[in-house]
């Protein structure tokens, strides 16, 4: 007697491409802009602290 292989619930995964076309994607670019904006604020804050350090010198 031959046995049939059981039907798998989920088909086996294959490798796939993530983040294709990100360079043209507005949402990805918006995110990058947000990060850059936050970095600008953080840098300004450090600059201010350095100024205080220099004044305290």
């Amino acid at each position: 007697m031959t046995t049939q292989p059981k039907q798998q619930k989920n088909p086996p995964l294959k490798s796939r491409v993530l983040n294709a076309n990100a360079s043209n994607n507005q949402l990805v670019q918006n995110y990058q802009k947000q990060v850059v904006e936050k970095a600008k604020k953080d840098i300004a804050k450090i600059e201010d602290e350095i100024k205080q350090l220099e004044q305290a010198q």
Partner: protein
Amino acid sequence: MENPELIKQIEQANNPEVLKKILLALLDRIESLETRLTGLDKGEEGNENKIAVIAEKRERLERIRHGLTELNDRMQRPYVVSAELQAVKEVLDVLAEAGECNSVILEGEPGTGKTQWAYSEVGQELQEGEEVVLIHVRVKDTMRAQDLLYSIDDVRRLSDAQAQAQVPEQIRQEAAIWKQKILSGETNPADDKEYATFKAKMSAITELGETAKDLDYINYVDLGPLGEAIYQSGKGKRVYLLIDEIEKGREELMTGILDEIENLTFTIGETGTVVKGDKKNLRIVITTNTEDSDKIPPSFRRRSLYHFVDYPSRSDMAQIIDLNFPNIQKDLLNYAVSVFYQYHENKDVQKKPSTPELLAWIRVLTKEFDGTIPDDVPHREILLKYKEDQDLDIGRINVEAQAEAEKQEGELPHYVHKALQGEKIYHIRDSINSQHEQEEFAEFFAYLQNEGVNYVTPHFEEVEERNNYGDYSTAQKCTRHFQIILPGVENLGNGYYAVPDDKLALLGGVLDTQTEVLPAGQKFSSVSEKSKNFTKGMVIVGGNEYEGYMVEDGRVVINKPYE
């Protein structure tokens, strides 16, 4: 320094190039601030507090620089995620949803794409419209668990206290003195008891009025990356926390964040505020290089999933190359993949090339490629970083074997040498290089393609030929023969291959002979060539006649039909 016009542009335009420019301008600004910090460092020898204050600022600048550089380099890159890693991600999502486990340790050699995966996952989710944040921590040996959670900005608080009219004059004056002490390095705010007393006094004034309330500690908390990730996830935001190269941290760092990673809760001591996260929203990706991965304590591993990120398979690598070089010629792609894996599968190579090195190499090759596959491996300096590795005679696509075979006419063929050395030799049907027979082999080529095997199909060109009557006619000539490029399979020229048993199934359908070495004492029925090293002629074996080569020790090499 920043160009205000440029900033305006970036705020208005959605051009990635402009974004890049502003990013580079910020990196310049960081550099100039670092130079100023170096100026402050001078003459502070022995003042440990001051040096620590400067170092802390340098560290923060470095973190921002790294974040911006990585954002620029990685955020828009596509990524071929293996089936195995996808499966791990699915398990992680299920467990995180159930509130059980939301972290995964990715171990692998440098350049296998562990860090890039996190960036590309985030990029993918952004593209799908998810609101998601990536927080990237590059671990250093100086890092403390506390740095990852939060810090209090004492100087800013003291400055604000000094500036507020509602604060009693005496406290304002004291605030000015303490600020000076902290900035000059005279005291370390973290362990000065007198300062602690002053802090308590200052905290009491927050009850005085609305403005003074602004001095509440909660306004001066700077969350570290783990603290931020926990906080944001608790607020319902989807977050990926990437803790990169954790093995570079001290054990105290790893054990110090165990509870926070597991329970997603921590308390800000100064304010008593409890910050709670939500496992459903937070994925923690921890990467480690194989070399030092044993530094990760078992207690840390126990709380995470684990996946070993291997180098991509051949077919995935071909896809990676294709994504990065959409117009690459197939021959060059096959050649590059072949060379890469020949280096990878050679145990003598000390430092195997990584995927980024392969891509850099291809970038150079594509500029130089004139349609001819190189005989050798040009620009090894991109792939191999040890002299011994560069000197290894491997990584050649066996174009040279063909040339060698032709050069050796009149000498014992290369495949006979190999057979005598004990290699298993097979011959691929000559018809594979006939233009009229290509249809017959199309399925075989498809089979190789689907199996992820690299190969080169025969190439034909129209040439003018003169027949016996002196007339010219055009004919198709095979200018490039079929070649299979497979680790462990050696192309010996003229259609002969040394094929190990485990690879034989791939070629079985197109083989016509297998080479056999017979012991001395065989009889020739005819001899066509006799030289110093061998005798060539027809040998009778089992009632059948085969062409054979007899060598000096009397052994005879024949080609029998492949069964």
